[in-house]
Structure formats: structure tokens, C-alpha cells
């Protein structure tokens, strides 16, 4: 499904702020894989995700989705295959537009926009049904501007938008990090439900080790721009947070210093 071969990325090369963010990273995802990604700040998690999404080009290596080489594709073209939910709840939706308008855009993700009127009675009925599945009462608020929604509601809506035109790959970049714990749990449960229903191949970054162990069938730990270890489904079931920390120390040769990882 997703084949990443030896990608590297350096920010601000040749300056004093030069930062090697990804170093020869290779990753293969089978169809239906739900991979959680953990690692401390600056480990390269977000850079990996943004490189796949095409936010910026990689310096070396190649990225293939379903046999198509997308390494040189611009971000908007990759959207045909990729659904995304960002960490910032403001980023995935257009706040000044109605829920209905946001959904109408997402429904045609990756298609060339036409001069057809974007709103229709059939469309609204379909959107209502989808929103009902979120169980947030949004089905009666199609004409509300998205800016009026809470962070949790917006992330749930963005998740729906990212998946309503079924993507080949779903990228979740710490999409619950900005939410309070209770809301985060709800959005994660919703994520699991949607991913399972559509058998989506998913890459989910999280800061929370418990979530990383609880969700998905595979786990990768990143450290200083490379993948430190990759845990498969069988082994993942038996792991606890303590085991993860031990594995990290062994592989990295140092103690895990990121407090945020330890505390969560």
C-alpha cells in the first residue's frame, strides 16, 4: 500500500539552523495496517507525515502509494489518495464556511471542481446521515459556520471529511493532542470505528504511549530522524508502557528524556 524507501529531509541546509529531520527512513504499510507512531519532540514524526502528504518535498528517496510514485507530486495532487487530520483543530476546516460547505468540498476530495452548484437536497440528506454517525448533534446544524464548533467537534468533523471520500491512506497527526482528555478519548474511539468500518490504511502520530498501545495493529518508535523499532501486531498486544521504555533505552542507548512521553 504505502512504500517509503530511504527518504531523507534536512531543513535549512547550509545554515546554523540546519536540522536533519529524517535520515534514510523506510517504511512499508500493508493494506489495512493501522500504525501508531511515537517518539519524543524532534524525532521526525511530523516531518515523516508531512513528507508523505507533500507539505514539502523530500531531499532523497521515494514514496509510493498503491504502486504509484508520488514523490514529486504537489500536496494538492496527493490529496486524491490521502485523507488528513491535523493537530490544530483550526487547520482541517474552513471556519468561516458552513458545515455543509465544508462537507461538500471534502466529498469531492481529489476531483476537479466543476461549475455544478455545490449544495443539493440529496447532498444534505447524505451529510445529515454521516453527521448522525458522529453522535454530536451536528446533523441539525448543517448551516452553522464551522467556527462556532468546539475543538472536539471540529476534529470529529475533520475526521469525517478526511474519510468520506475513502482515502487510500489516512494520516492523523496528533489529532487529539489539543483536546481535553475526555474529548480526546471520544475522537479516538470514533477514529477506531471509522478506520475499522472502511478498513483504512492509517498512520497515527500520538504523544500518548497508552493510546499508541491501545489503538492500531502496529507501532513504530522514532528517534532522531529514523525509525528506532517497529512492533508487529502479535508483539504489540503483549507490550506495556514499561516494556516500551526499556526497548527505547536498549535501541537508543540512552534514557527516554521527553517528559511528555513519560507523563502521558
Amino acid at each position, binding site marked *: 500500500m504505502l512504500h517509503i524507501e530511504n527518504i531523507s529531509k534536512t531543513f535549512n541546509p547550509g545554515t546554523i539552523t540546519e536540522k536533519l529531520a529524517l535520515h534514510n527512513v523506510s517504511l512499508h504499510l500493508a493494506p489495512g495496517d493501522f500504525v501508531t507512531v511515537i517518539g519524543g519532540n524532534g524525532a521526525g514524526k511530523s516531518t515523516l507525515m508531512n513528507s508523505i502528504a507533500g507539505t514539502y518535498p523530500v531531499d532523497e528517496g521515494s514514496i509510493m502509494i498503491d504502486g504509484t510514485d508520488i514523490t514529486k507530486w504537489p500536496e494538492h495532487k496527493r490529496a486524491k489518495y490521502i485523507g488528513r487530520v491535523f493537530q490544530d483543530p483550526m487547520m482541517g476546516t474552513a471556519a468561516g464556511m458552513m458545515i455543509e460547505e465544508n462537507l461538500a*468540498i471534502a466529498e*469531492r476530495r481529489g476531483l476537479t471542481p466543476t461549475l455544478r452548484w455545490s449544495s443539493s437536497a440529496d447532498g444534505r440528506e447524505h451529510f445529515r446521515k454521516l453527521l448522525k454517525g458522529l453522535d454530536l448533534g451536528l446533523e441539525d446544524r448543517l448551516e452553522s459556520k464551522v467556527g462556532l464548533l468546539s475543538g472536539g467537534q471540529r476534529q470529529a468533523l475533520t475526521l469525517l471529511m478526511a474519510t468520506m471520500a475513502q482515502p487510500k491512506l489516512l494520516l492523523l497527526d496528533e489529532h487529539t493532542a489539543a483536546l481535553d482528555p475526555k474529548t480526546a478519548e471520544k475522537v479516538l474511539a470514533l477514529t477506531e470505528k471509522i478506520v475499522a468500518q472502511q478498513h483504512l490504511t492509517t498512520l497515527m502520530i500520538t504523544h500518548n504511549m497508552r493510546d499508541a498501545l491501545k489503538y492500531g495493529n502496529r507501532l513504530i518508535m522514532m528517534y532522531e530522524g529514523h525509525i528506532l523499532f517497529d512492533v508487529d501486531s502479535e508483539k504489540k498486544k503483549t507490550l506495556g508502557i514499561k516494556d516500551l521504555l526499556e526497548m527505547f533505552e536498549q535501541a537508543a542507548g540512552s534514557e527516554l528524556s521527553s517528559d511528555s512521553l513519560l507523563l502521558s
Partner: protein
Amino acid sequence: MDLVIATVSQGMLWALLAIGVYLTFRVLDIADLTVEGSFPLGAATAASMIVAGAHPLMAIVAACLAGMLAGVVTGFLCTKLKIPALLAGILTMIALYSVNLRIMGKANLPLLQQDTVFTLWNVGGLDKSMTTLVIGTVIVLVVALLNYWFFGTELGTAVRATGFNPHMIRANGINTDNMIVLGLLLSNGLVAISGALVAQSNGFADVGMGVGTIVIGLASVIIGEVLFGTRSFKNCLISVILGSIVYRAVIAIVLQMGMPPNDLKLFTAILVALALSLPLLQARWNKFRKGAH
């Protein structure tokens, strides 16, 4: 009464400028100074065509196309060459000054004894100012309806979303560069039509008639938004048109009260500066009042 009709019809002719400025300033979230050049470009194109014997309506179409081209140039500068939008607009505006002089061949082109879109039809024996009002209103209504339709289509929705959140719309597969160029094209097309209409109404095109048009457009947009609301895109369109009329009324009133016409631009600039800082001033005032209690 005459003054009221003249004021409203002027408001209508300038309303297309206001809609154009609304499309860039609010919809695309870009302050586009191209309008200072595309407004006289529309006037120059239309006047030259009419003097050369073209039909006044054809002159308006040609003006619109010229304005669109100006918008595309600015769009190219800011998307493909990555020049900041404000500077890109200034560059096009300055370039257009020379272009407009070339089109007209001189700084001022009168339309004496020429047919204009306002003299073509004698609508039910109405006098000149009433005719201007009727024709101006019809054109504005047609343009407003076309805008309402376009910005409700998938493509138009994508342009609006680009202004609200480029990350979101790129993640949904839309090339934001193309949307910005398209928005600038439409905006400057409308501004040029406005210039063509004003030239035909005034009876001349002048190379200097673009000075301050961005501020006039902004004043209309802001007045309209404050007085008539921003609930939906339709609401915004209507607000901007009405805002243009109210702006003309305000100008007419202060002139009646004896303000020298030379001070008009200063007055408008202060008006817009005040309106733009209103949210901040309001917040300060609320804070101040809370502190007092």
C-alpha cells in the same frame, strides 16, 4: 430628489468596484492594489473603443477582459514568482499607468457626442440621471446574481475556502495558486467594468481616476458589513452593494455641508482607518469600562 437619484446611481456604478474589492480583501484575504490600475484600465479601454466606434456594450466587455488580464498578471506575480500579494498588486498598478496612457494616447480622453451605455436606450422617456440609475442597477443586479451563482458552485466554493484556509483546501486536492489567480481575475474584471461605467457616465476617461479606488472600495465593503451584516455570502454581496450607496450618500452629505472636494480622499482614508480599527478600539473600550467598575 435629484441629488438622491444621482447619489444612488453613482453608488450603483461604483458597487462593482466594491464587489471586486470584497472578492480580494474578504474572500481571498488579500489586499489587492491592482484595482488602482484596473479601474482606469477599464475606463481607458472602454473610452478608446467607443471613440473608435465600438458599441458601448462591447466596450464594457473589452474593459472587463482587460481587467481580468491585469488580475492574472498580479496572480502570476504572487503565486508563481512568490512576490508578496501587496507588492505584486503595486507592481501591476504602476505598470498599468503606462499601459493606460498607451491605450488612450493621452492623459484624458473625452467622450463628447459619443453614444454611451447610458444614452443607447431612452428608457420610457426618463431623464439622464434616472436612466443612469436604471441601467446601473440592472448591470449590478446581473453581476451580483452571477457572483452568487458562481460562488455557490464547486469551483467558487473552492475559491472561497482558499481564502479561509489554504491548508484545508489543499488537503482536499485543490491547487490554491490557481484559485488565487481565478479570484484576482474575477475581482479585477469587475473593477474594470466599474471603471468603464464610471467613464461613460462622467463622459471621459482619465489616467488619474484610479487614485484612491482601493480605499473607496474598502470603505464601501466595511460600511456595508457593519450596517447590513455578513451572515452568508449572499448577505455579504447585498451588504457591499448597499455599502457603496451609503458611502456615496455620506460623501454627498459632507460635500453639502461644505467640505472642500479636495479633502474627500483624506476624509475617506480616515473613515476607513477608523472602521478597520473599530474591533480593536471596541475591545479597548470594553476593557476600560470593565476596569472602571
